[in-house]
């Protein structure tokens, strides 16, 4: 389903991928050196103690020349990635749309759009991670361009860490599930905030007899995701447009519910509503699990500051709050007993030839390793 690319389109992304890698391995680590060698000493000299909060680290670093240059270049990289994606996708917006229609028509029941679904204000206020038009902009009927751009550029921003098909988190989740419950076969699976289904497809593959429902707010993502899945030979996913804060499904109708890198894009209130829905929909004996970047608790102030960059400069307004929230407690508030709530780590499962996450490739929030939390619906415990 992906967009047709020219030699120059590929070269543009090659440049951005290598630029990101260089930034992560050479330029970004310089911030810690600058902090240690010249920023913190000055702060201590002037105030008699080191910075006491993440915000103070940010204030201290704001005038450091290395940090400024790294930040400015990083922002440029984000914008160039969007420009490169849009320049290749928008010129073929009509043909991509036609291709999605054609692929989708062979399994039309797998796509359910609902024009009554509106984009909530917390999403429409700011274009998510600097994507012009966010996930929703539609420039023509049945547009898929926002999704095609997202799909085309993600490989460059993650430098291969999420795998060839960007499904490392989904494959890692399926693998985790098979290790945690070796003989268990979920019958109904729900993916919340599925986007183009990068991480839906691997679950549908791992459990071919399961019915998978993938929900998202954005029609372009669902149209593209549906066509992409059909193109990959997957027929057990239903892509459905819905707001995860209030889903049109019966209570306890899914036995595996998951989300990957979704919750940080939702507001304080929406986060609680979404976890409420996930808890309502979870069947007896079922599992819900949510993958995110690790929480800030236990991290040094400097690392928190580095990870917080996206909140301030990459249109991720809810990033800080989410990483400060004790997420397992939210499930506790939703009625789960402490012993049925868990926290774990999910590693991206990627092809042999793809790079693996390591200290040298982790780029503060972009590695192929996730923090996960969830709960088991155990009647006795709940």
């Amino acid at each position: 389903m992906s967009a047709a690319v020219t030699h120059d389109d590929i070269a543009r992304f090659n440049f951005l991928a290598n630029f990101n890698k260089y930034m992560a391995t050479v330029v970004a680590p310089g911030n810690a050196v600058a902090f240690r060698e010249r920023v913190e000493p000055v702060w201590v000299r002037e105030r008699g103690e080191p910075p006491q909060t993440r915000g103070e680290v940010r204030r201290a670093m704001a005038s450091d020349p290395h940090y400024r240059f790294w930040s400015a270049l990083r922002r440029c990289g984000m914008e160039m990635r969007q420009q490169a994606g849009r320049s290749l996708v928008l010129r073929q917006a009509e043909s991509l749309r036609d291709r999605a229609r054609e692929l989708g028509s062979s399994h039309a029941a797998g796509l359910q759009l609902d024009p009554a679904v509106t984009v909530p204000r917390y999403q429409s206020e700011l274009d998510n991670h600097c994507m012009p038009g966010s996930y929703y902009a539609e420039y023509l009927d049945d547009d898929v361009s926002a999704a095609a751009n997202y799909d085309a550029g993600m490989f460059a921003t993650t430098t291969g860490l999420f795998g060839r098909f960007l499904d490392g988190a989904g494959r890692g989740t399926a693998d985790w599930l098979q290790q945690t419950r070796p003989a268990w076969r979920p019958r109904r699976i729900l993916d919340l905030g599925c986007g183009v289904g990068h991480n839906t497809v691997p679950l549908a593959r791992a459990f071919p007899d399961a019915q998978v429902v993938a929900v998202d707010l954005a029609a372009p993502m669902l149209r593209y995701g549906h066509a992409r899945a059909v193109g990959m030979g997957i027929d057990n996913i239903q892509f459905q447009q819905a707001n995860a804060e209030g889903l049109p499904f019966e209570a306890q109708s899914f036995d595996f519910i998951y989300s990957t890198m979704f919750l940080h894009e939702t507001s304080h209130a929406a986060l609680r509503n979404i976890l409420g829905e996930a808890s309502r929909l979870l069947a007896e004996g079922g599992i819900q699990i949510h993958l995110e970047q690790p929480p800030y608790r236990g991290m040094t102030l400097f690392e928190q500051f580095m990870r917080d960059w996206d909140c301030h400069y990459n249109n991720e307004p809810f990033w800080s709050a989410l990483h400060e929230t004790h997420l397992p407690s939210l499930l506790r508030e939703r009625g789960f007993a402490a012993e049925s709530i868990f926290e774990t780590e999910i590693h991206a499962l990627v092809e042999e030839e793809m790079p693996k996450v390591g200290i040298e490739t982790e780029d503060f929030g972009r590695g192929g390793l996730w923090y996960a939390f969830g709960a088991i619906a155990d009647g006795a415990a709940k």
Partner: protein
Amino acid sequence: MNPQWLELVNAAASGKRPHFFGDADVDRLLAIVWAMAGELAVTRERLDTLERLLAERAVVQRTDLDAYRPDAEAARERGEWQMEYIARLLRVLQQELDALRATGAKASGD
């Protein structure tokens, strides 16, 4: 490209663009310089493909390129092109100097 898309291709994301340097113009300039660096890499990659295809098809070997020495005429033409190119890029400096000279000439009563 369909001209109606061109503006959309280069659209900004909603939200204020941050600036990190003391002067926001430095951020602007860096954005332009870095976009050019990207386009240079794109050109270099295209050239690399061309060289490899020529070598594969036994038209020109990559070692031939490194061993190539322009004759006098080619060297002169290249030199001319370089001068034109540099003058085009640094046009603004020349224009400012021209203006400064004109002011100086006026003041000295020429």
